[in-house]
């Protein structure tokens, strides 16, 4: 009797594909997770929030003040809801969180502007969440410099340039267009793969055991390696489907630049997919039931999400967290994906990130093979 038979492997692979097709929940997860995560991280979770509710207190009422408000509207960051009746009312809106900003334009704004006195406008911001207001404030300071250029023609043009005609009383470091998606979407590819690959395969063997089909499978001539690889292969195809989904979205929805070679990225992704699948298979051999398998998958998923540099900048983490993160495949795949897509990295650039993934995979696979054998007794 042969030690490894392609025929038996084929049997397991075909069976897995049919089961995958029948299992609506798993199938929904394969497509649903990338789509939901794309929408969440691509649109909902945005570190560059726009359309922040803004209230204007215009004591001047002149055309220049109106021009500033118009420019703020056009910037997209401010949604000027209404003009507050009084200072107290405006402050209350801010207090209640109904307004993110209150813009105060002083009484003699136009007069002082034309005299070249650089009048000040005061922007009061609800700064409870600095991340939310930061980009808007930054954009406004840029805006103030050039906003009145067209409104100050002829002899007034001397007010252009320099420090600008108006002084803005909130200052923020210049950062005009902070496009989060460029950073998030390539990383999302790795997050999606980690999540689905691990969970789906974690269930694969546990399900066989829970439904009693494992006993039948063990009684046949099929070998552990044939079962394990037979369960992994179909999901490699699934992984590539997900990569294509995310990359398609990156291109069509988010205009993420693709500087490097996509072929290289696809090729390297194989290692990452197999690494995650072997984690799932290992959990599957350790878990007693499907619930446990899912729990284990989450234990793996959370540190991957938090310590890989996807959520927080890797270099900002303490040393121990960097050490843990350095063991996880996602950390390295993130660098590969961002490197290839954003910086146009070639194989030589990403090679140092490949061997930690390979090492991780080998260790995990060894545990899986050992554990699977033991289930015979």
């Amino acid at each position, binding site marked *: 009797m042969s030690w490894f038979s392609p025929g038996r492997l084929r049997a397991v692979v075909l*069976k897995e594909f*049919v089961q995958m097709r029948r299992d609506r929940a798993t199938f929904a997860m394969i497509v649903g997770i990338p789509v939901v995560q794309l929408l969440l991280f691509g649109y909902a979770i945005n570190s560059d929030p726009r359309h922040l509710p803004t209230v204007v207190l215009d004591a001047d009422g002149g055309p220049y003040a109106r021009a500033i408000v118009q420019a703020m509207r056009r910037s997209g960051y401010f949604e000027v809801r209404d003009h507050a009746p009084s200072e107290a009312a405006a402050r209350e809106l801010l207090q209640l969180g109904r307004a993110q900003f209150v813009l105060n334009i002083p009484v003699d704004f136009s007069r002082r502007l034309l005299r070249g006195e650089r009048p000040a406008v005061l922007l009061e911001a609800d700064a409870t969440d600095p991340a939310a207001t930061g980009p808007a404030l930054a954009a406004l300071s840029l805006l103030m410099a050039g906003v009145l250029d067209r409104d100050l023609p002829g002899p007034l043009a001397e007010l252009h340039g320099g420090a600008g005609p108006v002084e803005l009383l909130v200052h923020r470091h210049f950062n005009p267009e902070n496009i989060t998606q460029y950073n998030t979407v390539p990383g999302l590819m790795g997050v999606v793969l980690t999540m689905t690959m691990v969970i789906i395969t974690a269930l694969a063997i546990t399900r066989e055991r829970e*439904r*009693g089909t494992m006993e*039948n499978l*063990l*009684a*046949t*001539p099929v070998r552990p390696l044939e079962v394990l690889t037979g369960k992994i292969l179909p999901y490699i195809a699934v992984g590539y489907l997900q990569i294509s989904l995310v990359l398609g979205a990156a291109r069509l929805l988010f205009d993420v630049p693709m500087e490097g070679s996509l072929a290289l990225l696809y090729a390297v992704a194989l290692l990452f997919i197999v690494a995650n699948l072997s984690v799932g298979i290992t959990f599957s051999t350790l878990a007693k039931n499907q619930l446990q398998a899912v729990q284990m998958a989450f234990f793996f998923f959370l540190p991957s999400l938090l310590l890989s540099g996807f959520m927080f900048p890797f270099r900002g983490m303490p040393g121990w967290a960097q050490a843990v993160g350095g063991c996880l495949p996602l950390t390295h795949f993130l660098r590969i994906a961002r490197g290839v897509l954003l910086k146009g990295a070639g194989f030589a650039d990403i090679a140092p990130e490949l061997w930690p993934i390979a090492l991780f995979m080998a260790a995990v696979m060894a545990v899986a093979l050992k554990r699977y054998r033991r289930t*015979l007794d």
Partner: protein
Amino acid sequence: MDLVIDVQGITKRFGGKTVVNGLDMQVGRGEIHGFLGPNGSGKTTFIRMLCGLLTPDAGSGACLGLDVLRQQAAIRLQVGYMTQRFSLYEDLSIRENLDFVARLYAVPDRRAAVAESLERLGLAGRSRQLAGQLSGGWKQRLALAACLIHRPKLLLLDEPTAGVDPKARREFWDEIHQLAAGGLTVLVTTHYMDEAERCHRIAYIAYGSLLARGTVPEVIARAGLATWEIGGPDLPRTAARLRALPGLEQVVAFGGTLHVSTRDRARAQASLAEAFRGGAQRCAEITPGLEDVFISLMGAARDNFERGAAASETREEAPRP
């Protein structure tokens, strides 16, 4: 005799518990061998050792002429094992399940083998139905078809008819007899007496040890049991009264009668004569049935086991000062 199963002293322990204790078994070619015993007596464990799912801790022997300890992989190729619980894929269709199993065994001319198997079991018309949607009886037929598809020489059936209606059970047994007539050897566990009586020979185990073996009449005769059937009014109170009498080992309700059995015929006869003097009950000695014998064996084994366990406990405590 051409022995398909010939094992001696097969032992299996889980933790500190001996589940199968030095079991011997010989089964000849074409024989239907019944394997009986209470739940947890080690029947399933023994069968799993025969088909290589578990490795015995002690013992030796051959299955299909191959060493049970060292040639498990080769044994598996020629054995069909039907598990106690339905263990095919409920989310695969009937045909897909059979096809999967046929591929695993590398059955030559697979398509034809699957088609023939569907035909033979009368499942051809429903081959696209998902296995999970089948009723208990059909699931059982499918499971049987799946373990026959690679033409095994030995069939191991672990409680194949649990939860199956009487008609389907009878058809199942007719099928088993046909297969055995064709030279297939069958080892089957069951809790049903009527099924035990349809086996060529039976073995009875409890607490991992063999208690009786032979044809049904042999097992009954060797038990040395005397049984009386008691009929008449108010049987529950009679039963309570009889249980208190000396020499009556078991009093069991059988429909409208009571069966009183014992291995101490003389003492029981005296007790019964005393109890029914001038009463309204009828009392007649009958030939004990297989069930009477098994209940008696089970009771004796339990007493032995408990005494053994108690003895070993005292032994363990004895050395302490």
